[in-house]
């Protein structure tokens, strides 16, 4: 590997202890052995259905949870308890829910200014204010509203405030945890476009989490598909779109609505049978095998690893 990565995630594991009975706990494998890497300026999309551990991946990278195992390397430096405080100036997070991610007792100015306060990124009050107003303008907020409280804003505006807060420290990498799924469709497009603009203007990389394939394809260079805590396929965005390999990706793609009714009628939808297994009681071998059409005995015996199918297209499946 000659290329330099901005962020490398190696065998990340995040288990949560779940209490069963009075003294016994069993691990809930929210993220199990996930590896990927992101180059500077690149955007990796992360898709998967609800509860598959996308948020947990993002939060473990940010060290909001102490990972059970694995390694995260950011900008050539391993992320651990000691280095994280410094590295937090380089990576930031935008949260899923714009309603609960802003403190209702703080003004917009103080919310956006908090990272500046914490990392002491200004000399005097005037410089602080200038920076905050600059950030507000950058994300398309009216600077006159700086002294208002977060609860007075609409969902889209709130998400912009959250983005401005993430941008305040000039990060190289931002984890965007479903930043648009709580917004309504017309606003989604605005906010996604803003993410793209910011990427062009500031050269940041994103880990863009979503469960909407349309949105993810629009913004990502590469896409990783997650199922029950594992990455099952990772490839270039167009590659994944045109030539999906893993049966789970196929079913996800077939569920994407097509605007053209004639095409839509011709298309065959692959409907998955059964429910997602509980992460507390995972099937042996491949986690997807209980719902997979192609499942064989080998799938039950052993979990397939991600293998290169050429062109940087990785798939974890025995049969494809």
């Amino acid at each position, binding site marked *: 590997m000659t290329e330099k990565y901005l962020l490398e995630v190696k065998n990340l594991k995040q288990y949560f202890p779940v209490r069963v009975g009075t003294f016994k706990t069993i691990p809930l494998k929210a993220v199990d052995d996930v590896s990927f890497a992101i180059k500077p300026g690149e955007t990796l999309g992360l898709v998967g259905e609800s509860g598959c551990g996308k948020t947990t991946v993002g*939060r473990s990278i*940010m060290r*909001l949870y102490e990972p059970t195992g694995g390694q995260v390397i950011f900008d050539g430096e391993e992320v651990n308890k000691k280095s*994280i*405080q410094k590295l*937090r*100036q380089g990576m*930031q*997070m935008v*949260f*899923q*829910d714009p309603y*609960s*991610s*802003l*403190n*209702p*007792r*703080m003004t917009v100015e103080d919310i956006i200014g*908090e*990272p500046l306060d*914490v*990392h002491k990124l200004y000399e005097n009050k005037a410089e602080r204010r200038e920076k905050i107003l600059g950030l507000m303008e950058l994300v398309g907020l*009216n600077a*006159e*509203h700086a*002294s*208002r*409280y977060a609860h*007075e*804003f609409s969902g889209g505006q709130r998400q912009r405030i*959250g983005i401005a*807060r993430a941008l305040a*420290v000039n990060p190289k990498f931002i984890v965007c945890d479903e930043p648009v799924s709580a917004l309504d469709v017309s606003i989604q*497009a605005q906010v*996604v476009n803003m993410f793209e603009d910011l990427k062009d203007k500031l050269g940041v990389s994103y880990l863009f989490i979503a469960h909407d*394939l*349309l*949105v*993810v*394809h*629009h913004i990502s260079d590469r896409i990783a598909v997650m199922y029950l805590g594992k990455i099952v396929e990772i490839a270039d*965005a167009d590659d994944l*779109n045109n030539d999906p390999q893993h049966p789970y990706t196929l079913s996800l*793609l077939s569920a*994407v*609505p*097509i*605007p*053209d009714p*004639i*095409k839509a009628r011709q298309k065959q939808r692959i409907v998955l049978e059964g429910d997602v297994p509980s992460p507390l009681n995972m099937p042996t071998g491949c986690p997807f095998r209980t719902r997979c059409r192609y499942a064989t005995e080998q799938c039950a015996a052993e979990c397939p690893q991600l293998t290169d199918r050429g062109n940087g297209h990785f798939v974890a499946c025995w049969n494809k």
Partner: protein
Amino acid sequence: MTNIDEHGAPVKKPFSMHVDLSQFEPATDAEKMQQEVMGESVTFWRDGLRKLMKNPLAVFNLVVLAIIILTIIIAPMIVPYGYADMITIDGMRDKGAKNLAPFQWSEAEQAYIDAGGKLFPHIFGTDGLCRDYFIRCIYGTRISLSIGFFASLLVMCIGVVYGSISGYAGGKVDLIMQRIVDIIYSLPEMLIIILISVVLDATLKFNGNGILAKLGTNMISIFIVFGMLYWVSMARLVRGSVLSIKNNDYILAARSIGASPRRIIFKHILPNCISVIIVSTALQIPSAIFTESFLSFVGLGVQAPMPSLGSLANAAREGLSSYPYKLVFPSVIICLIVLSLNLLGDGLRDAFDPKLRR
């Protein structure tokens, strides 16, 4: 790059956005302005105060309290008598001014007035030691109110710090801290207060004329008791709301920024449970006043000659059959204060924290 399918319709990649941006035109500045019109900014405090002002019962009690507080501030400036001094006429002690009824004059005073002198009336009469009873009640109210206020402040500080640390730390720390709370909760308060008062009385002896000496060791022990025992319910309440606030994403956001736990507690958590804190502090004041009065009544309160409402009521017991009004004045003041503080606390709760209502 758009392909055309066999029906002549453009093929869309399943991934591409649904919306065809070329069919839209950019919004004009005027349209953008429309988006930015916002309602008037309403802060938490203003909103709460507005709701409080709409509650007639709360406003009424606020007025009652304001009148009481104004009276205890202004009255000592107007009334020419001291709470510890015997009534004097022309520098002469008036031994006849004993146990006078309200607005009654002693013989010597009457003679002085007849001779053309001017005297301030004894609004509540005088006590058995020839002291003006009105000014004693005023000072008693002062003492009782300030004890209630400061004891509640103390309770609030300890309870808030303890509760927020316990709630924020969670896990084992929380478990241990909560067991300590449980133990303190189960102690019989009155017994402890009496024990502490007795022990402190023997060990602490204040000399001189400082405010501490004036108040006496019993007052110190009341504060110690409040500091040791009464903060637990506040700590529990604060811990409860910290636990629920902790789950909000903005706490995670603050952590991802790199904010220290101290900053998170003081900037993010406590401002969001301020309503719980205000309401329970407001409701703590009357209970502290009540405890103080009770202790003074059983003789463990402020040091004589400093009056408090409880010790005044206690002293009035002796002549209860002849001068019943002496018991009525301090008791009515206690009731008035406690009742109006309680009702005001309820009003505050409704205004600032409607969820707390049961």
